[in-house]
């Protein structure tokens, strides 16, 4: 019992040290310039929300929040649908061809994005999707499929086949078995897929700049970095902008955090 107590103290100490950068981020965003230059490490005294007010209005984060949300949510729906269906097949198929297909998907994880950047941009242009949400949604769905398939396939392989088989004995097709029985069982890994893909899509800065740049549809990172670029040395304003930009995804994580760990746990055996 005493050892657990000691461990608890050690772990809390580690967590406090670990939080130091976050403390700096938040405390600086609550300080005015004299406080930042005179006492960069101290607690804000008194704290001010001025930085947040000016960051919110100067960076025009309202519309960007909308764009980022639409793009992230639709991409996630597409990724979860396409990824889970494909993985159900890839996890169950026994032929060498099926395994080859799985490896083909995993190849996407190792390819540097620079390789296909220009042809992909040309393709999206030809589809008439530059400057639209749909262009980015297509991009994210494709680019994140390998990782999604990797997570789902591992998880499904570890699921007992009996669930689906039982449904099929009742005469249900694979589609019904999948949507009614298997998919609900995938909830933990779906949570993991959701959060990890959301993190990537929400935070991506470069692609929205290329695909949406100048279209008037900015995403949060694009707005935040345009803003940050203008206030280089005013750390209070810059950090307030960074906090606002990260806040939505951090909140999503806090809501979904239980699934993140659970999802991995059964997927490992795949």
């Amino acid at each position, binding site marked *: 019992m005493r050892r657990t107590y000691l461990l608890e103290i050690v772990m809390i100490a580690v967590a406090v040290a670990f939080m130091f950068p976050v403390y700096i981020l938040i405390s600086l965003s609550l300080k005015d310039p004299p406080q930042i230059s005179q006492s960069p490490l101290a607690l804000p005294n008194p704290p001010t929300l001025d930085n947040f007010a000016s960051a919110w209005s100067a960076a025009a984060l309202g519309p960007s929040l909308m764009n980022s949300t639409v793009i992230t949510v639709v991409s996630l729906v597409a990724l979860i649908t396409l990824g889970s269906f494909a993985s159900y097949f890839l996890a169950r198929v026994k032929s060498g061809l099926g395994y080859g297909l799985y490896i083909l998907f995993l190849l996407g994880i190792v390819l540097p994005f620079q390789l296909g950047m220009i042809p992909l941009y040309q393709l999206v242009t030809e589809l008439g999707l530059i400057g639209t949400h749909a262009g980015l949604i297509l991009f994210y769905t494709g680019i994140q499929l390998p990782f999604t398939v990797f997570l789902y396939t591992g998880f499904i392989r570890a699921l007992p086949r009996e669930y689906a088989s039982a449904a099929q004995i009742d005469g249900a097709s694979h589609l019904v078995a999948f949507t009614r029985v298997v998919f609900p069982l995938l909830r933990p890994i779906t949570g993991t897929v959701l959060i990890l893909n959301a993190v990537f899509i929400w935070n991506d800065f470069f692609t929205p700049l*290329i695909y949406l740049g100048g279209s008037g549809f900015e995403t949060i990172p694009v707005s935040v970095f345009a803003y940050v670029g203008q206030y280089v040395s005013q750390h209070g304003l810059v950090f307030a902008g960074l906090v606002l930009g990260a806040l939505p995804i951090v909140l999503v994580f806090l809501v979904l955090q239980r699934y993140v760990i659970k999802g991995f746990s059964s997927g490992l055996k795949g």
Partner: protein
Amino acid sequence: MPDLLHNARVSRGQFLRMMGGLAAAGFVTACSTRPETTASTGGGQSTTELKFIGVADQKAPMDELVAAYQKVRPTVRLTTSYAPTDQVQTSIRTQLGAGNAPDLHVVFPGSGSAMSMSEIAGAGLLADLSGQAWTRTIPEGFKPAFQAGGKTYMYSAGSSVIGAVYNKKAFEKAGIEAPPTTWSEFLAVCDKLKKAGLVPIALGAQTPWVTQLITYALVPSTVYAKDPTFDDKQLAGQASFADSGWRQAMEMYLELQKRGFFNDKPNGTTFEQQTSMVATGKAGMAIQVSAVLPDFRKAASSPDDLSMFPVPGADDAASVWIPAGVVVGLGAGAKGKNVEEAKAFVDFLGKQENINAWAKAIAAIPLTQDASSTIDAAVQSFLPFTKDRAVPFMDQRWPNAEVQPVHFAVIQELLAGDATIDDALKKMDEAYKK
């Protein structure tokens, strides 16, 4: 289990419908979120949408001028995006490479960078602006920055200078009455600042582009004052970095470091930290380009605390030259759908009052001047030089985009004590010849 779905064929049909539905949903999203490139307005006229992508420094002047243009030409709507230089460069080069550039985008003056006027115009991707009235008044010395093959491809509102941005209060505190006009006076000023317990020169060499500014401030005096045609000779292979005043400039750079005139650990100090050191009076000055004066002023308690003076790179005040380069500009894509409208906007920017407005927003010296032109008080002391003792920023005449990054890297190596001036100049000469 539900028996209405037991037929495999039906469910596959459903599956396909579902996928079709998904595709349709994607399509609907695409349509609903697509900006209307041509939509009719009340008067039956159509609206043209123009895209602009620029660097963060351009946001302040563009916001003002785009709003003004809206009033002059309500049928054209400009949508703009801004980002830090590196990301903009990547983004626009990808778009140019794929043949789908924005209607208007940032262009760097002259040659010597992957986003430079001559590089992009050379690939046939910038619209020719030569017909516009303002292009006929570009001062002779600036033409290489705007023109390739006698045609104008870039708009820029004026020029900025490189010099010392200094904190007046810090100078007062150190008992310095007037800015120095010779190199030995400059060293004496640094000494006084140091004795007063201040950092004489803040240097943020962690930020790559900051590394070059001290060399750029000195080279006009050590190279071009002695030989104004150095660029042409170097292009012809008759001159090199190693056998020129570049060596002297680098020696002077390192002398400043040896005498302890820089802050500790310049390679670990960023532009942001450099700015706030000067703005808060911890440091006396920073050698910087006048275009970032607004950043220094925003960080200072009062904008009037800051001013600039030319860095005297010679011991004879009469042979001090200064760097004055055309500021980052913009161009119209040659292959866009609305080239004429894009050019019309550039023509609007070329009007004297708009040149004045843009120049004012970034503390630049307007390209051409009239009675209403204002020149920032901080750069007044540079004006006597601009006529015949000023040279463009060095990279604007370099033949390829590799020399400048090599310059950044060798300065960092010199400051770290990891290289000699010989190594540094040799690497730059090698990059120049690539």
